[in-house]
């Protein structure tokens, strides 16, 4: 089986962004995932989001663990920094990198196995520390790479491809992220780019721990009747609470909507997230109401998607730790080893 490189020829009318790049300049090497895997669509959504945000590829660090989902950073942003860590350990590697150089944009890509099983502790702690990042789980309810065992996000009662029934209670990563203090939480579907792309753009611009759970059907092991992570199931049970537009600056915003149908939320960096309400009463800035909504609708068998929670004024790890403005990796020996005298002064503070 050979994988040819994607042909270089492109559509002549392909747009260039402010950096002079086309969308295709944000691609990576050719995917080796199964044909039709939801993860490839998420890669395409990340490519589109970075293109639209005019991001210079070298400003991004993409980090991942192990799994089909964790392989995907190879298939997008070929010009960016990347680190493919061990299983479930992406969060600590990302945290370390962020501590060393807070000037990069951190994109963590993981799977439901990588984050909800072996890496669950890492996931929760990374979120609670307030690391400034976009954390995406490509959630297919199985361990795809190891041939389709149920993962911890599989719903109780769902069927495996071979016919077995999952008896364990599922972990809902969205609820866990909320509990752990994520300041941006969303859920989407790999088959719905109009919803997913602006969500990724908003998350990348968010200055705090942003988490997106993306349901991403595994076509090889979890796209059959009886699965709750299949294309058909998600399409039939998708309860989108809102759709969003993302604007980088105030200037480009036009307002011609019925009052009450949209809600504009301004983020710390001046960017605006415009929510087109679908569920009338849904207010994504109210955390308690959000958790309530999620629990009620999960009971009904619905997959709640959209921007679920947002704290427009988050604090990130560096603010919480009061680190210096200059990224740590730029400090010289002089600043890092200020000498015995400086140590004495510090010690004196604790006497």
């Amino acid at each position: 089986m050979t994988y040819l490189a994607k042909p270089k020829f492109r559509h002549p009318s392909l747009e260039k962004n402010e950096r002079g790049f086309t969308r295709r300049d944000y691609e990576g090497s050719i995917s080796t995932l199964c044909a039709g895997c939801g993860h490839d669509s998420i890669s395409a959504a990340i490519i589109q989001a970075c293109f639209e945000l005019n991001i210079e590829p070298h400003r991004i660090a993409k980090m991942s663990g192990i799994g089909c989902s964790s392989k995907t950073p190879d298939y997008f942003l070929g010009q960016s920094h990347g680190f493919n860590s061990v299983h479930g350990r992406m969060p600590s590697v990302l945290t370390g990198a962020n501590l060393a150089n807070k000037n990069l944009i951190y994109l963590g890509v993981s799977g439901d196995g990588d984050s909800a099983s072996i890496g669950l502790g890492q996931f929760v702690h990374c979120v609670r520390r307030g690391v400034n990042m976009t954390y995406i789980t490509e959630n297919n309810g199985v361990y795809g790479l190891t041939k389709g065992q149920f993962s911890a996000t599989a719903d109780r009662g769902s069927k495996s491809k071979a016919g077995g029934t999952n008896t364990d209670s599922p972990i809902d990563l969205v609820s866990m992220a909320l509990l752990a203090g994520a300041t941006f939480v969303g859920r989407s579907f790999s088959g719905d780019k109009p919803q997913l792309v602006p969500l990724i753009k908003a998350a990348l611009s968010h200055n705090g721990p942003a988490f997106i759970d993306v349901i991403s059907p595994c076509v090889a092991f979890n796209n059959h009747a009886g699965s709750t992570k299949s294309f058909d199931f998600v399409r039939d049970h998708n309860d989108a609470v809102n759709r969003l537009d993302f604007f980088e600056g105030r200037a480009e915003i036009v307002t011609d909507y019925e009052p009450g149908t949209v809600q504009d939320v301004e983020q710390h960096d001046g960017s605006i997230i415009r929510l087109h309400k679908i569920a009338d009463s849904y207010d994504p800035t109210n955390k308690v109401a959000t958790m309530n909504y999620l629990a009620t609708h999960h009971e009904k068998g619905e997959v709640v998607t959209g921007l679920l929670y947002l704290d427009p004024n988050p604090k990130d790890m560096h603010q919480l730790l009061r680190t210096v403005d200059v990224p740590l990796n730029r400090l010289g020996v002089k600043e890092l080893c200020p000498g015995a005298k400086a140590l004495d002064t510090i010690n004196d503070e604790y006497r």
Partner: protein
Amino acid sequence: MSIDALDAPAKRSRPGMKPTDISNPDYFHKVVDCQWACPAHTPVPEYIRLIAAGRYADAYMVNWKSNVFPGVLGRTCDRPCEPACRRGRVEAEPVAICRLKRVAADNKGEIRDRLPKPATTKNGKRIALIGAGPASLTVARDLLPLGYHVVIYDQDPAAGGMMRTQIPKFRLPEKVLDEEVGFITDLQPELRMGKRVDSLKAVLAEGFDAVFVGCGAPRGRNLEIPGREEAKANIHIGIDWLSSVSFEHVDKIGKRVIVLGGGNTAMDCCRTSRRLGGEDVKVVVRSGFEEMKASPWEKEDSMREGIPIHNFLVPKEFTHKAGKLTGVLFEKVKAEFDAKGKRSLVPSGEPDVHFECDDVLVAVGQENAFPWIERDAGIEFDKWGMPKVDEVTYQSSNPKVFFGGDAAFGPKNIIWAVAHGHGAAVSIDKFVNGLSVADRPPPFVTLASQKMGIHEWSYDNDIANDLRYKVPHLPNEVALKDVKAEVELGFDRELGYKETQRCLNCDVQTVFSAKLCIECDACVDICPTDCITFTENGDEKDLRTRLTAPAKNTTQDIYVGDGLKTGRIMAKDEDLCLHCGFCAERCPTGAWDMQKFLLETAQAGEKCQSR
């Protein structure tokens, strides 16, 4: 969480474009841009793949069947296929389709045993062909194996028409023409060479079942300006002069030559002059350089041989002294455009220009002439003196008389003559069998999957990034010494192979099956040229603006598939598809398949009658 039964019925789609009917042969034929543009509908990508595989004889036969003169055309064709080639829409230049045809011809080896044999039983029908150019020869090739008795008349001593008398030998060696004309004369027509036909009525009186007029457009236009009469000894009509060169009645020309005219005949005149003693040879055209009728490559070839092209000069007078030509006086003009964008040439007001010369070749156009067709032979002529000929059946107002090639609709080229010949042969075959000529036989079409494995196809789907390869030429020092030395050397096998790799295999079609599609978007994401969209249906104009990439080229179709679960449609813009098969490779369900579409135009014979 409750788990429902999943098989929800498909949602109804919005009104808009109708789903594409791929069983209509025209649909996929149009996608094969080159074949669609070729008047004889040669299956181009099919023969290009055969060349790549080193199967030159097979590639030759695919050509021979469609266009009858692959060796000739591989050197001289007007190549309408190349401007149509898809490659030219995704990068700078089209595939060198024409010169690849020559690679097949040059390397074919011995193929006589693959050609039809003279008919052993005759059907008793007699057909007369007037003129032995490519149009008539095509009719002969198609009818002879069926048992017809075919009589070919030509005033010239050898068959070939203008391929022999006009096209210079340095572009088309005699042996190439002789071989391919020979393939037809081997089928044993009755040749009446060196015999000019002076009366159509006399031919009809011989009792032929049908007559085909393929006498070409034999008259070169004259230029009636002052001095024409006085200096006539050194002013020659281009096509008459070229045929004299061809028959070796003329073998030299003056040192300083002016060629008047901007078409392909002018290019052959100037290049021939350079080989017969012309040292200072120039071409002078009325129009701008860009608007000249000559093909870009012919202009390039002329300039490479040191022939300047002067433009915006209208000949005013032949100057002469003591009854001998001394030069040509020109008025300088410029192009002006009216509100509708229509161009006219108006005097620029600058002083006239005089070029000195020893000889002038007038190549300002060609005309039809039918002095030998009596006006009461049952054939209607229009006010321009052209016969009224049906564009599909080639039948004239005398049902027994058919026209084709340059004689039918004015001067064109060899490949059109061949296409007319095939069409006329079908009509004649039907006519003499008492069938309706208007009822045209459909083409033979096959569509077959190319899938061999998950990432394996029986065609080479890797896209080469190579730019167009240049055909090597003889150096000028050698080429200009001999009017018969072929100047283009052609691609050798290695270069030819490289050029074949530029072909995008446009005949390997993307075939969509909506009922298999699970709308996973994998094909949309992978497609390098953004051809595929899943969206709400709408009318074509609206839909074209809503696709992944705008579909602005309205000459290319949108392939619509409906019946998807979400009620959306699949819309594929055919315009820039690379036929790379990546959509099919990434499709988890086989909803896309790459299928080879082979179309062969029906030719005269039993099959065409029974269908």
